[in-house]
């Protein structure tokens, strides 16, 4: 596995397989951090049964790669892997995987948090929530923009 790897796909990802890849032939890294975001069944007051994920093909992969490279420039990291799903997702399904490996735990943990924070505000994905009450584009959150301030 190369040091930075990103994927945008409609198929589910396998967290165990992703972890195995992150660690394969990688004895120098004693720490791995993973974040997985998935579809909640409850968004504010609206019940959500499905999520439709749209993206900007071509730009998405480029932005994800740039975010991963920014993390590698900032921390001593082994590998960074980002997988983001697009298309129609049911409640409880996984949306995004961020995995980092590093010689030391703080770098792996910080880089993982950094990547998901940047992804949330920079990567061109848009969520539409679909439920019994209709279809609604998810609004960007102020808290996501504020989360960037710590980096």
């Amino acid at each position, binding site marked *: 596995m190369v040091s930075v790897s990103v994927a945008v796909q409609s198929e589910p990802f396998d967290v165990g397989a992703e972890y195995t890849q992150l660690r394969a032939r990688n004895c120098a890294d004693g720490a791995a951090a993973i974040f997985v975001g998935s579809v909640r069944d409850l968004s504010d007051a609206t019940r959500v049964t499905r999520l439709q994920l749209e993206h900007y093909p071509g730009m998405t992969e480029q932005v994800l790669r740039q975010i991963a490279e920014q993390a590698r420039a900032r921390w001593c990291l082994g590998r960074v892997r980002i997988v983001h799903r697009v298309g129609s997702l049911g409640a409880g399904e996984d949306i995004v995987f961020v995995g980092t490996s590093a010689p030391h735990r703080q770098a792996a943990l910080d880089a993982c948090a950094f990547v998901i924070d940047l992804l949330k*505000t920079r990567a061109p*994905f848009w969520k539409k929530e679909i439920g019994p009450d209709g279809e609604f584009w998810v609004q960007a959150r102020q808290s996501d923009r504020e989360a960037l301030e710590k980096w």
Partner: protein
Amino acid sequence: MIRVLFFAGLREQLGCAEMEVAAAGASTLAELRESLSARGDRWRRALANPNIQMAVNRSVAAADCALASGDEVALFPPVTGG
């Protein structure tokens, strides 16, 4: 020509995912946006939203970014992935 893409809620508001415009009337992103706004009420309202983000050739760009024929421009609402 400049290729212009619209995404998500903005695409739905405009009823348009993609169009081509002459490079002549759009030497910057700001000019392009203005000429698009002039296409009618629906366009003016949708593009008046100050939160709309713009990208040129797949990188986020500011309003004064210069455009040339062959560029790919995208306009979209704030992103909500992850």
